[in-house]
């Protein structure tokens, strides 16, 4: 299996960074070949086309980077603190580019690519369900949990777009204010 001589995930790690930094449309297959050192034939053999690489890269991003951030929502403790920690985990500079790859790719492509639209929808729905769970665990009535969760997803979209241009203290304050308004707690 000659085409498996390279490591699939290593290629996808590169793809995440390239599509994120250069945008999907701004990153040619030639750039991928150059940066991964894997030839075009092998890339196409494994992923079919550039879109195939994109879909697989989103999946890897979810597994490697998001799942452990999503796990924060399962932690015990003051719910507002847990939520803040969750939002901020996407903005830290430590493991990968600050922000969210799903929001980035969704912003660029969800209007024109049905599959990306579905992937974005599914991703935000999973998050929404985790919000409902944490609210239920904190004894919010179910109906209220469902409503609040939608607005917590809204705050996620905002914190992974608007907050990208914030300083650390601005984003801290913005997210805290957002949580306070959603929960009706005045700071």
């Amino acid at each position, binding site marked *: 299996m000659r085409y498996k001589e390279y490591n699939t995930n290593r290629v996808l790690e590169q793809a995440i960074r390239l599509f994120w930094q250069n945008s999907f449309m701004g990153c040619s297959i030639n750039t991928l070949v150059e940066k991964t050192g894997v030839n075009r034939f092998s890339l196409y053999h494994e992923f079919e086309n550039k879109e195939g690489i994109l879909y697989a890269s989103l999946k890897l991003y979810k597994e490697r980077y998001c799942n452990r951030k999503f796990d924060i929502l399962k932690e015990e403790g003051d719910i507002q603190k847990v939520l803040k920690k969750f939002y901020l985990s996407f903005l830290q500079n430590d493991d990968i580019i600050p922000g969210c790859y799903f929001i980035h790719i969704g912003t660029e492509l969800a209007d024109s690519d049905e599959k990306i639209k579905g992937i974005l929808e599914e991703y935000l729905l999973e998050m929404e369900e985790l919000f409902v769970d944490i609210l239920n665990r904190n004894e919010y009535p179910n109906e209220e949990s469902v409503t609040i969760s939608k607005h917590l997803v809204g705050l996620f979209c905002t914190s992974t777009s608007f907050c990208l*241009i914030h300083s650390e203290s601005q984003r801290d304050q913005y997210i805290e204010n957002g949580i306070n*308004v959603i929960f009706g707690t005045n700071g």
Partner: protein
Amino acid sequence: MARVLSATYDELVEKAQRVFWLNGYKGISAKELSEELGVSSSTIYTKYPKEMLFMDSLDYYTSTYSDPFLKGLRESTEGIKSLQEFFYALIEALLDRTFPKSCLMVNTIVEMRVENQDIIQKYHSYISKLSDSYKVVLRKAHKLGQIKDENRIDAYAEFLLGMIFSLSIFYKIQDKSELKKYVDEQLKLID
């Protein structure tokens, strides 16, 4: 920055703005841009560089789409109800493609993040205009008795800044009634 204020250049900016709105900045090469604009690629490489067209596109966008919208909002008289109408109008524009793809400023923040200081300057003035307009309406809402605590106005204005960002994602995956419900619920949080 030196500007070339010929009619031709203005027309190019108007066209370029639409091209960037749909493709982003990095999503289109200088050569492709020249093809879309119907000018020679040397025009883009030497006379009107892509970055200059992009910067002026952002200004064109705010002065054409955003400023009149915000002026109407500041002049409105019904407080929270005026905000609701404002966001409903935004939903319409997103769905009927008056805004062909999301909001250009939002797209640009997501795409360019902190890579370009000139762009960050533009965001800051855009965001402060937005925030000031919200505050004007929220103060009216307070006078109308729709907001109890005047001291919360700044916090609410900051919260509402998020609306264009969340709607810019949600319109891609939700229908009109869900979007309107989202707006209504957000406004209910302001009391």
